[in-house]
């Protein structure tokens, strides 16, 4: 007698358009033992990814000057030559997402017509925000609006050597402020989140509705067919691992430098290699604890803690800062963003080369190089949502939060500079701008401490979710691979960061990680096509 219809069994998933393939998740995996640990890894993605990363680290350490120059020039060449391509592609992603919200495809539910969401809105939102851009908001929330404002109002605004957006507003502080906020929000609003949304939606659709493994190659099934299980797919997955690990490791290295500068500024802790290595070890250690505690007890919990802390800091600055100006500024900045959006996103016929290539194209390449990681993580936690809900929550709400964040932090800093003549906030180095802004507000010891904790925990939430993603890709899309594998990737990331920090080469490899944004832009454009094709065949 058999009875499997008991409590604990999920509700029927409803009809979906499964892809009929002979491929079975994990069929190319090899199970092996390394000492006492059992492993279940994809052959050859795991080995090639690991060995190539080691080879690149050694090459960068051994030939520092030449690799540094080569990767740096490659990045500048790509964002300089193909700026129109990055800008055009990002516009396509935004338009596709907006179309999906209003089109009948919005009704398709990820995981089947009757699937129920795996996570509540708050947990889901906390995780996608913490993985997506939390740390960037900490560093650029103050510095970027100030930079754009300063370059826009400067005497050389509009000249070829100026970094001002759209030619700036020489001498006009009001318009420079509008332009500065609009340009910052442009870089942190709809476009980056559309990039993440495209990757995440493609992965979720092809895994939960089409039944393919949760790994990058699955998105390309409609284009390459069964070839995605061969070398075509191996290369896509290896590239995704590569971009993710180098993106995370170099950010971790730079993050340690920035956190060290912050700790030095507040507590007088010396800036030294020892301090930085201790910070990397501590961040990696917490990330290890988080991945071993699992998605719910580790990653989600930390993301939620971080979300609460970030909200507290935001509310505090809102209350003690120029409250009315910030609140009215929020709507004003939204308006300015909408007003400047067509010009800022226009890829052709512009003269602000430094801004368009050095800021916008660089940002787009950066977001795109992070998109396999963030997209895959968002996909992992988004089952059960409709496409409309998904895009609204991954595109619209985070964009609005970004606008609010930039208004509170950037707006307050610009007010300090313009209204109070607090020049220090403009003169401070990038990593200290946030702390310099907080210094001018009450209770700066407490708020600066919270800011440091936020910086560190945001790194942890990127590091742990990134390790989970790399682990899943290198296990052929299996999400239940043995725990030592995720421990390996989290530790490996920390070791790569330490090696690059001590030996030099953080900048070189970060430039290379950002350069992977170029091939991934092509990949993402193909993913747009795959999404439309995939959604078309789904029951609505």
């Amino acid at each position, binding site marked *: 007698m058999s009875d499997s219809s008991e409590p604990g069994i999920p509700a029927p998933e409803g009809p979906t358009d499964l892809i009929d393939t002979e491929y079975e998740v994990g069929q190319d995996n090899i199970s092996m033992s390394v000492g006492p640990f059992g492993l279940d890894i994809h052959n050859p993605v795991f080995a090639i990814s690991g060995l190539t990363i080691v080879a690149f680290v050694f090459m960068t350490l051994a030939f520092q000057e030449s690799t540094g120059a080569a990767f740096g020039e490659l990045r500048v060449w790509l964002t300089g030559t193909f700026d129109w391509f990055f800008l055009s592609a990002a516009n396509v992603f935004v338009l596709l997402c907006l179309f999906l919200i209003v089109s009948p495809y919005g009704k398709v539910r990820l995981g089947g017509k009757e699937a129920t969401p795996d996570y509540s809105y708050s947990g889901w939102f906390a995780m996608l925000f913490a993985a997506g851009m939390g740390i960037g908001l900490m560093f650029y929330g103050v510095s970027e609006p100030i930079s754009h404002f300063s370059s826009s109002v400067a005497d050389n605004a509009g000249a070829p050597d100026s970094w001002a957006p759209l030619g700036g507003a020489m001498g006009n502080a009001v318009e420079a402020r509008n332009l500065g906020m609009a340009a910052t929000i442009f870089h942190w609003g709809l476009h980056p989140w559309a990039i993440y949304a495209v990757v995440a939606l493609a992965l979720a659709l092809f895994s939960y509705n089409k039944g393919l*493994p949760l790994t990058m190659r699955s998105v390309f099934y409609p284009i390459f067919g069964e070839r995605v299980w061969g070398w075509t797919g191996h290369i896509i997955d290896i590239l995704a691992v590569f971009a993710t690990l180098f993106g995370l490791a170099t950010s971790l290295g730079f993050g340690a430098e920035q956190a060290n500068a912050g700790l030095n500024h507040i507590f007088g802790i010396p800036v030294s290699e020892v301090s930085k290595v201790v910070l990397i070890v501590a961040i990696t250690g917490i990330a290890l604890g988080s991945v071993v505690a699992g998605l719910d007890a580790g990653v989600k919990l930390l993301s939620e803690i971080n979300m609460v802390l970030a909200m507290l800091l935001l509310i505090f600055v809102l209350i003690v800062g120029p409250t009315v100006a910030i609140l009215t500024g929020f709507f004003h900045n939204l308006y300015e963003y909408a007003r400047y959006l067509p010009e800022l996103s226009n890829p052709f016929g512009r003269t602000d080369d430094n801004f368009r290539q050095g800021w916008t194209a660089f940002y787009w390449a950066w977001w795109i190089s992070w998109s396999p990681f963030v997209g895959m993580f968002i996909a992992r936690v988004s089952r059960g949502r409709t496409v409309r809900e998904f895009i609204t929550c991954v595109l619209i709400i985070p964009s609005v939060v970004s606008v609010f964040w930039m208004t509170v932090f950037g707006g307050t800093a610009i007010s300090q500079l313009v209204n109070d003549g607090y020049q220090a906030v403009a003169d401070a180095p990038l990593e200290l701008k946030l702390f310099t802004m907080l210094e001018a507000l009450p209770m700066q010891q407490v708020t600066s401490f919270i800011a440091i904790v936020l910086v560190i925990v945001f790194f942890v939430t990127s590091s742990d979710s990134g390790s989970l993603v790399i682990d899943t890709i290198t296990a052929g899309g299996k999400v239940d691979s043995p725990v030592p594998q995720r421990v390996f990737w989290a530790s490996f990331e920390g070791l790569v960061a330490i090696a690059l920090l001590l030996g030099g080469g953080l900048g070189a490899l970060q430039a290379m990680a950002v350069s992977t944004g170029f091939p991934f832009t092509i990949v993402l454009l193909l993913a747009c096509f795959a999404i439309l094709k995939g959604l078309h065949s789904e029951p609505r």
Partner: protein
Amino acid sequence: MFKSIMVPVDLVHADKLALALDTAVNLSKIYHAPITYVGVTSSAPGPLGHNPAEYDENLAHFVSEQARTHGIETHGRTVVSHDPAIDLDDALIKAAHDIGCDLIVMATHIPNVADHFWPSNGGRLATHADASVFLVRG
């Protein structure tokens, strides 16, 4: 003596379960206790199904095979976990509690050095579950 037996199964590695499955069947016959086979899966596609519903069908097939082959009363239960590699023990402890079983029969590996700092699933279950736990080394 025992009224209900739970057997956690990892159907991907069913070949390694033979001894534990036989032990459970024999105990079921001795005590006339039904067996509930419990499988833990994630919502992502895996080797045993594109989604939890398909996984559940596979488990149901296995469960009915056991009943037919051995002439015992069997049940199946699929537990969906967000992160099965980590949440397995807790999911099984909860399943044992929900089923109300008084004996868990489970396959486990021969202890090695890793068990000193990384407790085995069977070890954790024996420490934390409400029921008696019979660990079968395979």
